[in-house]
């Protein structure tokens, strides 16, 4: 059973002047990262719907409640599974139903996707740049 929590009040958008330390390193990926707004970091609580451990990028499908209390599915893109594996990620790093805090660079055009930065799990452990 997927557990969703009200995250609207927890949603924060942080505008940072120094961003590259935390930005997704998609520039070394197989495509341009220009679609991501690296000057903005979105930090939200979300529920994992699916984790796609695939090439050329991993994808974390998450459910986020918007400001109108509607549930939205967002697609969060990470680097490739090979390099992530060597950084400690595993195919089961995100399990459907997990409630996590997640940070990402949102799409510039406001569509429901982003470049992964980091996540914190319910037990306090983290992955990526948190």
């Amino acid at each position, binding site marked *: 059973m997927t557990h969703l929590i009200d995250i609207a009040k927890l949603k924060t958008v942080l505008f940072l002047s120094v961003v590259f330390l935390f930005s997704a390193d998609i*520039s070394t990926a197989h495509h341009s990262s220009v679609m991501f707004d690296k000057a903005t970091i979105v930090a939200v609580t979300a529920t994992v719907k699916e984790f796609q451990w695939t090439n050329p990028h991993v994808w974390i499908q998450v459910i986020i409640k918007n400001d109108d209390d509607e549930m939205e599915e967002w*697609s969060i893109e990470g680097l490739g599974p090979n390099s992530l594996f060597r950084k400690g990620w595993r195919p089961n790093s995100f399990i459907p139903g997990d409630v996590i805090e997640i940070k990402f660079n949102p799409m510039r055009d406001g569509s429901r996707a982003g470049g992964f930065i980091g996540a914190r799990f319910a037990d306090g452990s983290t992955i990526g740049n948190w």
Partner: protein
Amino acid sequence: MIAFCIGQIYAGQLALAADAAMLPDWSGVWERVEGNGGIFDPSTVEPVDGRAGSPGVRQYPPLTEAWETKYQAMLEVVAQGRVPDPISICGTPAGFPRLLALPDVYEFIVRPEQTWIITENGPNIMRIYTDGREHPPESELWPTFTGDSVGRWDGQALTFSTVSMLGENGTVLDRSGLVLSDKASITTRMFKTEDGLLRAELTIKDPIALSEPWHVVRHFRKTPDGTRAFDYACAENNRNPITPSGQTLTLDAEGNTIDIEIDQDN
């Protein structure tokens, strides 16, 4: 007669075995040292530590006036977020020399008769013949992604010549949009340094794109013992297709485009 032939074959095997014993140990899994977001020549990148593909980031090879103009036009395209990177379509190799500047890991397979450079990203396979052969005659050459490479061992250093690369007709050197012509030729010297790095020194000549030889150095460091390289299948789940205008789209989990803003000329 049969005994003579067997003796010749045995002698040949012994010679190869002896050669193999003299070759350096480049085993294991390696990764590039110069990251720089994939910029090909990190020594001249501006701004320092700039990432290939970011607006305003470029390098300074000794380009001819015409190819400097060409590069500046590409930089304008990059600034618009429409960088033309062939490998983003998940269909073609990165080619040489770009394959020395890729993310993910490398393997260098050294044998007396050949050395293979295998890049996990792509993947790319580059074959360097060291069995004494020369480049084929021009009538047997056509431009390819990695070109034709022949070389020789000088002690623990491998020097090889590469010709017949695609150049701008299907490859870029990095996401800043830098390209060479299909008349480029490259001499590469690779050897292990005292601190255990694998160093590649490239001298790139191009009578069309370069006004003088361009010297580029790249290094690789060995990853911890036991590190594995894996399959890289770019088309497996590519949710970032490229439009004819060069826009990178994003697909949802069902394969539907989720971008709100899409180029009108797509």
